[in-house]
């Protein structure tokens, strides 16, 4: 059942993104930033956690998950260390996506030549 929900949740987010992309003048850069912000807003209302419980990989493979991880990391930091924890805990969970893309993109840029 999680597989069907994974398909539906990820698909719905992408379809909404495509509708925004087609009907407004926003660029892909705007859309990805917008969906990250939407992710942290959904996390704020506790909706994103439900989506992850429901759809597993479907919810955790889209960019909104990045906003969710930032929010959750900051909140857990606050519970441990107070105000300082918001600053020190923000990137703890989202670190995987940032460091992963830095490392892999660097390796790829070293090895490959750009195709034109």
């Amino acid at each position, binding site marked *: 059942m999680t597989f069907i929900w*994974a*398909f539906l*949740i*990820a*698909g*719905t*987010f*992408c*379809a909404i*993104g*495509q*509708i925004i*992309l*087609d009907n407004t003048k926003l660029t*892909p*850069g705007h*859309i*990805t*930033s917008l969906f*990250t*912000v939407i*992710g*942290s*807003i959904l*996390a*704020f209302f506790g909706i994103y956690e439900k989506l*992850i419980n429901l*759809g*597993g*990989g*479907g*919810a*955790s*493979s*889209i*960019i*909104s998950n*990045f*906003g969710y991880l*930032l*929010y959750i990391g*900051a909140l857990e930091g606050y519970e441990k260390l107070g105000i300082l924890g*918001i600053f020190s805990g*923000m*990137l703890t969970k*989202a670190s*995987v*996506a940032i460091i*992963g*893309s*830095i490392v*892999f*993109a660097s390796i*790829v*840029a070293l*090895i*490959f*030549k*750009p*195709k034109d």
Partner: protein
Amino acid sequence: MNKDDYQKLVKKYEPKENKLENTIYAFLIGGLVGFIAEGLNVLLMNFFNLSRILASAWTCLIIILTASLFTAFGFFDNWMSKAKAGLLIPTTGFAHSVSSSALDYKKEGLITGLGSNFFKLAGSVILYGILSAFILVIVRVIIGV
């Protein structure tokens, strides 16, 4: 030919994008990415006895690695233009923007090219993600839930 006629002519020959078709493509491809991600999650949880949180972190890494490699091989740009939001909204879009700017600006030097353009597109995602999460956590702390 006056301006209005010219505008009409431009409109006539403009490539028409089928919005419904685009949306269906985005839904199917995005859904497929989510489906594959869930499949990887289940595989990792069963074979390596990982918890769901660790499995989804590994899945995230695998997706980023795959997207970076496909970008380097050169066919991911084509896929992006066909699938549009279907590959943009998943983490693949983030990885693609980082690795394609890394590849494109490499020839302009390591610092002024690759270094300063690395987060050209992904930087806004990180910036606004962090700002919004920060504000929302502050709001939550103030209302004290």
